[in-house]
């Protein structure tokens, strides 16, 4: 863990936080979405620095490459992209929810500050013979097979549900 590592850790960490803050404060949905993409990137970079390259690649592939593209697609399709079109609607309930979220965040910060630093998880020093993916796959398909399969059924149900909703005739 040399100076190079520390420098990059803070670089990406600060970039991620700045992007996240900018993401919530932008009025234009397209600009906000792009800042969120940037946050994802910085997180991916941090994962890679922790030797979790698979997670880093999946982070970019799934969130930045697929979900945010679909998000942008919808924003453009509904032509919501211009800041002037977005009115600042804030009902009482929204304000209440925001206040509760803020309190929770403060409480988390307090716990983190009081708590001891977590024990760092040492990555395996020698990579497995079959590469980085096998290290992820082995526990997934041996120890947690049932949970994995149940999750996949859940996702399948979500897909089928989306198709059913899309196919329903509006009467």
């Amino acid at each position: 863990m040399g100076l190079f590592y520390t420098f990059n850790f803070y670089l990406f960490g600060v970039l991620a936080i700045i992007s996240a803050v900018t993401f919530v404060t932008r009025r234009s949905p397209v600009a906000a979405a792009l800042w969120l993409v940037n946050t994802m990137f910085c997180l991916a970079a941090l994962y890679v620095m922790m030797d979790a390259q698979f997670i880093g690649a999946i982070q970019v592939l799934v969130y930045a490459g697929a979900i945010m593209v679909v998000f942008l697609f919808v924003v453009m399709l509904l032509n919501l992209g211009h800041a002037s079109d977005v009115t600042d609607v804030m009902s009482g309930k929204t304000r209440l929810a925001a206040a509760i979220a803020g309190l929770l965040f403060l409480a988390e910060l307090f716990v983190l500050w009081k708590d001891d630093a977590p024990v760092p998880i040492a990555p395996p020093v020698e990579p497995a013979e079959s590469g980085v993916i096998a290290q992820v796959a082995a526990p997934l398909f041996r120890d947690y097979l049932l949970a994995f399969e149940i999750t996949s059924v859940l996702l399948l149900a979500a897909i089928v549900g989306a198709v059913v909703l899309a196919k329903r005739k509006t009467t």
Partner: protein
Amino acid sequence: MSWSLAFALLQVADPQLPPVSTSVFVIATVIKMIVVFTVLMVGVALLTLAERKISAWIQDRHGPNRVGWHGLLQPAADGVKNIMKEETYPDAAYLPLFVIAPALAFIPAMLTFAVIPFASPLPTGGGLIEMVVAPLPIGFLYILAIASLGVYGIVLAGWASNNKYSLLGGLRSSAQMVSYEIAMGLSTIAVLLLAGNVALNDIIWQQATTVWNFFGLAIAFVIFLIAAFAETNRLPFDLPEAESELIAGYHTEYSAMKFSLFFIAEYSNMVTASALLVTLFFGGWDIPFTLWDNQAPWSVVKTIVTGLAFAAKVLFFLFFYMWIRWTLPRFRYDQLMSLGWRILLPVSLVYIVVIAGTLLILDLLGVRPGALHGVILGVVNIVLAGVLFLVLDSGRIISPASRRLRADQLRRLRAMRSRSPLATPGGD
């Protein structure tokens, strides 16, 4: 934004790397970056000329032949022209994104090439240098991840221009690229299954020691090829810039070098897609029928010869891209979507199951990966291709000219003809 990830990824030293000192690693990486970037840029410039020359050849014309010997300096003239031209900015454009969009289209195309091995390792005084800019252990996933970002440049260019044709082009491209990305990713699962790893070096080694994947995994190759055309927005999938419908699509409002940058991005994407096709299905830098080039002792001669082999294969696919462009007409948009979702996606899903099953059975029977293994996979693919062709064709492409039409077939053909806008009333 892509830079941050690239820098992080470049820091990760591959544990499989031979022990070279940090300074040698850094110097070698910088040199490789400069060389690859230069070769790609010069290559892209020459490809624009090649495209025009090949189109001219296909259409029986001369093509550009005024600047330099046989028009060889045409790319330089084009470059000078594009830099000297005035940049125009539409009044209603959203400037920050309008300016950044061409770069966003261009950067992912360059980044992807970083993990593709282009020759056998080069022995130097400082140790063995791998001939790839960044030998990542997750090589292939990195390519999928970065390739999925190429769509941002096009979408944002379309949106930021604030022009309805640009916006439509951007929307089309995002729908198209998201659709074909799925088929592309699924088709390569078979390759990964066979290699047992996602590192590109392992995929090349597996092909060098058995048979190239385009034989053993022929259907995956065809799906990947089609998806690669769609991902690079090349004809017959260039709907985002269909000039007969959308003026020029997403780059309608761009001028000068920004306009040119979209073309550079398109050609860089073509080079990367061709290199990927070669790596996944045609053995990368492997020279067929010999293991001489895949084993130590490494030498400079081996590096040069394998580099040339790689270049030859990539150039063939680049030619193939242009050949298709000047041969096939553009798809209709609904045809494009139906091909992606209703044919390529189910076929690639079924294919994964079949290939996984075949590999499992071969493993149970004790057939080790090798020549026999490859031949069995090839036979399975030929059978599958036959079945697929019969199902997909169902009398549409191949008319039953060998026998008389049945009455219902004749009625269907006549109905199709009367629906056509070119139908002559009463004529048969």
